[in-house]
Structures are given as structure tokens and as C-alpha cells.
């Protein structure tokens, strides 16, 4: 994987619930730490734009979708398990 590959991520939350806020804070922190300057994070409130939830097959909230680099991957939860996210974003090799 090229070191300067750009990450495109979307985080779907439901209004400003504590859980949503936590998810935003957690993911920002992880991304700033590991992907400083080479990520794009869009935060979408599906309360405001419910039609987007259908298009992206959102069921759980919060949901993070990694659009790029491929493959597309989904994370559900308040993004509190940093290790899992890093593995899922291919930023850390899977440890058994």
C-alpha cells in the first residue's frame, strides 16, 4: 500500500446524541493520529437526511464507511475500540 494513499471516510450519526458525539470525537482522534493530512471525513446526520441512510444501507448508528481505499468497509459503534478500527483501516496488521 502506497504510504500517501488518501482515505475517504463517511460517518453516519443520528443527531447529537452522546453516542454520536463520542463517535465523532473518537474517530477524529484516531485519524489525526494515524492519517494526519491524508484523510477526508464527512459527517452525515441521517436525522436530517434520511434518504442517505437508504442509499448507503445504513442500519446501525453510528456507522463509519471507508469508501477509499478499496475495499469498502463498514464499522458500527461509537468507535471506541481503536485497535479494531486500525486493523480494519489496514493501518495495523491483524494480530492473532
Amino acid at each position: 500500500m502506497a504510504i500517501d494513499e488518501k482515505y475517504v471516510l463517511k460517518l453516519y450519526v443520528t443527531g447529537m446524541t452522546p453516542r454520536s458525539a463520542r463517535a465523532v470525537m473518537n474517530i477524529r482522534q484516531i485519524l489525526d493520529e494515524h492519517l494526519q493530512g491524508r484523510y477526508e471525513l464527512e459527517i452525515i446526520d441521517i436525522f436530517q437526511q434520511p434518504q442517505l441512510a437508504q442509499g448507503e444501507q445504513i442500519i446501525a448508528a453510528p456507522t463509519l464507511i471507508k469508501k477509499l481505499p478499496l475495499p469498502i468497509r463498514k464499522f458500527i459503534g461509537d468507535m471506541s475500540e481503536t485497535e479494531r478500527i486500525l486493523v480494519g483501516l489496514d493501518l495495523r496488521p491483524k494480530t492473532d
Partner: protein
Amino acid sequence: MAKRKANRPVATPSLAKLKKVLTGIEGLDEITDGGFPAGRPTLVCGNAGCGKTLLAVEFLVRGAQQYGEAGVLVSFEENEEELYENMASLGFDLRRLEIQKKLAIDHVYLERSEIEETGEYDLEGLFIRINHAVQSVGAKRIVLDTIEALFGGIPNENILRSELRRLFRWLKDQGLTAVITAEQGDGTLTRHGLEEYVADCVIMLDHQVSEQTSTRRVRIVKYRGSTHGTIQYPFLIDENGMSVLPLTSIGLNHKVSTARISTGIARLDAMMEGKGYFKGSSILASGTAGTGKTSMAMHLADAACSRGERCLYIASEESADQVVRNGKSIGLNLSKWRTRGLLEFKNARPTLTGLEKHLVTIHKQVNQFDPKVVIFDPISNMSAIGEGAEVQSMLMRMLDFFKSRGITSFCTSLTHGGDALEKTEVGISSIMDTWLLLRDIEYSGERTRVMYILKSRGMAHSNQMREFLITSKGVDLLDIYVGSGRVLTGAARAAQEMKEKQIDIG
């Protein structure tokens, strides 16, 4: 006016009855005594391929088309395109309903392998989608088909279960009449125990194979706060969707007629007070092979058509042309009535389609053709496609349906040699109004046919036996010779008559 109003008995405040919504599915509203519980979820469970999705979708389509209630279809299995195609084959145009804003479809798809759990979450995303779909069309009805798919997609079952409970409560709060489909589990109603959440009304669909024909069945397992039918009802899926038998709500409250119609055989009319059968009654002609049952049926058909009435002839052993040809040999010109559109034949072996389908197609044909007389020739071969009690209840429903329409029905039944004469194969003689018995008598090397009226409700009929002749000019009934302590028929009767004539002359 005011005074008259005051005189009316004051209505006592009645107990609040469970509100129901009509499903619009043929027969289902009758067995549920008025449809599904309004504003509550109904669980429809069954094995794969038993018609759950169809029932659910038809509930939405009928709601949108017949009752002005928009609906939402949340599909967890089939996507929009698949649904369009699958339902088009049943005559439902889902796409058009979507355009007319009477239906919203949301395909919820999830792939577990793509999903990673990272902390706390809920299913608010699904709630928002459902709410959005409901709002977009102003839905009153909703279908979740099959929500159990979530169990394969959401890793944390505890979260899922608590969210499902929240979802069903939310549906109730919204006043949505919901249909939830679920796969049948091993020894349980549903694989994932959904009945725990949806407990108001549970409907079970089933598929059974007996005698190499498969029958779909529906049963109401429970219906809180309502009476309902308790037996397994067969149902069909055809190009018009689903239909559950009983096709009509059967009660013994049809109007009876005192009008009479001719049997088509003058001497037989004479045996029945000179007037013939009651209009709208059911008549059974039973007898061993070759005793003239079909000939009697043809006479009735001919008589009905000569009066300008339509007659439906259900021939399940002979082709239409064969019946017409045989009619010609006894002097009846049935093809004339056929070309004038008064006589219609329906030829189908019931074994081809199964009992229910056979009777439903008859039902449909009766609705279309609107006959005054229906002939079943014969009914005894129905027993080839179902078990005794089944066939009996089917025929009973069918005959009741005819009666409620004021249609005269004439059934022939073959009695096998060796069987008791006064017995019909399908055991329906007790529900018949008139029973004609035909039989052979062997006497001095000759076989002759005799006929008598075993019963005929509501009339003073003759109790005598008649010799039954099938001639090129039709059926004729002759008095049998009763004299010197003997019953004489055929040549013996002729000889005896001659003898008496000689005595008279002499």
C-alpha cells in the same frame, strides 16, 4: 321526527371491540373474522416457499388499491427489481404503486463480513429509514419481510433483541398495521423466537404433499381478542394472488326458492308433483356404471337451455365433444346451445390440478358465466385427489356456494359394483336435497334399468320405481309391472302387458 328518534331504544354502550383492517385477500378476511388487528403487528410464519412474502405484499397492494391505505415494504431479502418481477407474475404492479405514492419499498441489505463492531451502537439507522419511508407515503400498513435476516447481519444479538422490541413498540405507537414474516423454526413458530415480540396475531402457512399433490394451507395459530377459524384452510396462489378457501362465508342462511324447474324428462317431473326439481336445490343421481346418470344430466342441461338459462357443465371424465355426441344419440341437440352461448363446458380432470385448484377454477367460472344450472359429472372422481373428509367439506362448500347463488346443481356419482347402493363415494348424500337412484335389475337373462326417488326434500314425490329407458328420443320412464306379487321389467313386463291386453280383448 324528533319524537321518533326519542322512541328508539337507547344503544347500550358496547364493549370496545378490537379494531381490524381488511386484508383484501380472498377468504382470509373471513377466517380471521374481519382481517388483521388494526395498528398492531401480525406475524406470518412458515417454511421456505410457502407464500409468506406473497401474503404480505398482497396485504399492501390490496390496502393501497381497495382501501386507500398506503403501505411500506421493508424487504430484507429481495431487492426492488426482484420484487417488481416476482409480483408482476401475480398481477401486482409495484412500480406503478410506487409512482402513485401508494407504496414505498426499502430494500435493507447487510453483509456481516463487511461489518466491524467498534463499541456501542443501536439500530437507529433502520428506524430512521422505516420512518422516512412511512412518512413519504403516509403509510398505514407496513411489511417487514423477513426481519430475521438481521440476525445474520448484526453481530450482537442482545442489542438486536432489545432493538427489535423497541421497533415493534414503535410500530404500535405509530398505529401501523404491520405484517412481520418469519421463517419457521425447528419445533418453534419462528427460528429466532419473534413470536415473543409479536403476539397479537400469528398466522402459519404450510405446504403439505399428500397423494402426490401439494396443498398450501393456512392456519391462525392465535388471535388475541378475536374469534377466528381454527382449522387448516387450503389456499391457492394464482395469477390473481392468494385465495383462501372457504371462498365465501358459508352459513345456512341462503334464501330458498319455491319455484320449480323441469327435469327435462316429463315422466320424472310427474313423479315430483308434476313440477320437477326445486330451483336452487342440489340433486344427486347415483348409480352403477351405465345406468343413465349422464343422460339425466344432459336432459336437465337441455331443459335449462330451452328456457334460455345458462348452464355450466363440468365434465371431468369426458370431453365436451363427447358429451355433445352422446347427447345426439339420445335425441338431444346440445351443440345448438353451445353455439348460442347458453351451455358451457368445463373439462378438467381434478387430478391435474389438485382439489382446491379445481374447485377454485369452478368457482371463478361460475362467477364469470353466471349459470342457473351447474352439472358435475361425475363428482365421484374427486375422491381420487383428496381424502374423504377433505373432499366432503370441499363439495359441501361448493354446493353451499351454489345454493347461496340460487343455482341448481346436479351431481352424478358412480356407485361401484359391490358397494352398497344407497351410498355415495364421497359421502355427500346427506347434504343433497334430492337423491335419484339408478340401478340395474337382472331378471330372466335381461338387464333393465330402474330409477326411483330416494328422497326429495320439501315435496310429495312418488315412491315408485320406474323402468328407465334410454331411447333415441331421450330418456323415458315407464311404469313397471306390479301385479300378482311380482315386479316385472323389460321383456317380462311387455309380455305380461300383452297377456293382460289379450285378456281385456277377450
